[in-house]
């Protein structure tokens, strides 16, 4: 069905960003607009998701050009699900920013840029045209460049140099891949490409192109040989920015990877081996990297890499059940990782350090907060019935059904490593006796903040923790959603017909 409603999540974020720029100096107005706007964005994306869920795929053609010629926006279940998750995580981080981001940063335009980032994310999920996807990626990275450098501390700038370089390189590789693909097929529409790529006889060149896409998206989503920029940069910006980066930015890469490798390039034997090999080593290196770190945010950064491995593993197994696992893990991971970075930010505000060596005694001092923080930590491990458990169940089932035992072994090893790391964090931060810490002058401590800011920080963590619990206990519904997504990914006929029309 065709309806311009599809682009509303994008337009609305753009509107918010422009509106915020008119209130450049009024910090409190900016905070209010951002939170209320994010709430409305959640409502819009819920409506979009429910409509798509009930009535099938919605498309819109920019400028009313007929499908393979113009730019298409497509909202299928997967896209609208990702837009919904973006809006939910976006709302939580907006509320968290109210409490945790310093006024100096807000004066440099934190909130407008933040909404430009959310616009880019929604756009990337809804794009039905591969070059348009590239443009949305660029909008995402330019906004994230500003967010990562805003404030201009030394560590931030160093992290930014690495982050900017790798992302620009990924864009160039992505663009090269698009150029070759256009030369091969003469089309940019993803549904049209799905038909045309299957007809190309020169399979060697198709494989080369698909590997270029894999490398481009691989850098963005931080898979094994391409992830080194992530632990060097994600721990440098303020916690609110880390949260949205950790929750959503790498997941766009995974989304694009899943979309491209189920719709355009159906992986052959070689690609499946390559992807599952990459996934296995990603899980291993992320897990082991996290094991030796002492900085709380660096541990979580390496855990992002480890868990990206799980999602890519689902793609590497390439059965419907495994894709269900990947999609479920994606849903769970966006919520939980965003929450974890916020938790690390709250711990820093209270104690003034991220170091596991210096932290301690948290449970004795703040028992209620500790119990709250236990929810995202333990659902990350996947203790049943919390949300991580169900996703891994599907991944394992998928792996066993095709006899990919070594990859199943790596997934189990990854879960086990996560368990050790979370146990280490729990022991170090919450159970160990408190150490007397020197009071840092440059840190604004939690107890000095106004009650509203305190409530904003805790409230956003409560919100995402409840969502995470909801995913765990309402797993039956989430499995239905993931199943619908996986079915439509494995049989792209419906998607192609929705974009190109019944006649083609």
């Amino acid at each position, binding site marked *: 069905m065709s309806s311009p409603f599809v682009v509303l999540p994008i337009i609305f974020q753009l509107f918010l960003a422009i509106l915020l720029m008119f209130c450049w100096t009024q910090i409190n107005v900016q905070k209010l607009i951002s939170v209320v706007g994010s709430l409305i964005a959640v409502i819009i994306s819920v409506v979009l998701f429910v409509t798509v869920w009930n009535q099938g795929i919605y498309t819109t053609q920019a400028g009313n050009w007929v499908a393979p010629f113009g730019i298409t926006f497509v909202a299928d279940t997967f896209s609208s699900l990702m837009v919904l998750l973006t809006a939910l995580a976006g709302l939580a981080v907006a509320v968290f920013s109210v409490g945790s981001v310093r006024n100096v940063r807000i004066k440099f335009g934190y909130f407008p840029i933040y909404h430009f980032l959310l616009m880019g994310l929604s756009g990337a999920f809804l794009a039905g045209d591969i070059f348009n996807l590239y443009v949305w990626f660029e909008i995402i990275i330019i906004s994230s460049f500003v967010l990562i450098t805003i404030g201009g501390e030394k560590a931030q700038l160093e992290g930014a140099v690495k982050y900017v370089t790798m992302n620009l390189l990924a864009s160039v590789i992505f663009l090269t891949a698009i150029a*070759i693909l256009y030369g091969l097929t003469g089309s940019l529409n993803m549904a049209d490409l799905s038909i045309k790529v299957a007809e190309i006889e020169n399979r060697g060149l198709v494989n080369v192109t698909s590997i270029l896409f894999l490398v481009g998206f691989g850098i963005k989503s931080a898979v094994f040989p391409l992830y080194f920029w992530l632990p060097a940069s994600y721990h440098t910006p303020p916690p609110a920015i880390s949260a949205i980066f950790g929750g959503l930015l790498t997941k766009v890469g995974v989304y694009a990877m899943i979309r491209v490798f189920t719709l355009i390039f159906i992986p052959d034997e070689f690609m499946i081996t390559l992807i599952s090999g990459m996934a296995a080593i990603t899980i291993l290196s992320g897990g082991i990297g996290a094991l030796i770190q002492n900085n709380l945010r660096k541990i979580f950064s390496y855990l992002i890499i480890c868990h990206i491995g799980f999602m890519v593993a689902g793609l590497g197994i390439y059965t419907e059940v495994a894709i269900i696992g990947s999609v479920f893990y994606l849903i769970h991971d966006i919520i939980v990782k965003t929450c974890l970075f916020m938790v690390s930010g709250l711990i820093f505000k209270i104690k003034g350090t991220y170091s596991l060596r210096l932290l301690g005694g948290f449970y004795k001092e703040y028992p209620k907060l500790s119990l709250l923080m236990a929810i995202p930590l333990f659902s990350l491990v996947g203790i049943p019935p919390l949300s991580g458990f169900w996703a891994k169940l599907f991944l394992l089932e998928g792996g066993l059904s095709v006899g990919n035992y070594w990859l199943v072994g790596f997934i189990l090893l990854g879960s086990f490593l996560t368990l050790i790391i979370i146990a280490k964090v729990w022991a170090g931060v919450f159970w160990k006796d408190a150490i007397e810490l020197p009071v840092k002058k440059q840190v604004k401590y939690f107890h000095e903040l106004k009650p509203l800011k305190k409530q904003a920080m805790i409230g956003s963590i409560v919100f995402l923790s409840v969502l995470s619990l909801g995913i765990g206990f309402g797993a039956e519904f989430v499995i239905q959603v993931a199943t619908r997504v996986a079915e439509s990914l494995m049989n792209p006929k419906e998607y192609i017909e929705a974009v190109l029309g019944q006649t083609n």
Partner: protein
Amino acid sequence: MEILLVILIGLLYAAGIYMILRRSLVKLIIGLILLGNGANMLIFLLGKIVKGKPPIIEATGKALEGLYADPIPQALILTAIVISFGLQAFAIILIKRAYKVIKTDDLDEMNATDEDL
């Protein structure tokens, strides 16, 4: 014509990658710029170069006739140039700022982010 472009694109990519691998921040940016230009030339080349007319439908006709140039690669390159212009401008300001704060342009000495707290 094509073979010349192929060689040029190869040179741009090779030079770009070589420059990225250097330790100096300025050379890093130069490398990225060269790579971006290489990618733009690649789109141009793969859009098929023809000695044809511009893609304009005449007032009397209803469709394009004969041999005409494909307008899409040009639109793509234009978009890509504008985007890379913005990104490179940002990157240049970033390295200037980074040089002022960190006081080195040697990438090997930028390891404060790897330090343990």
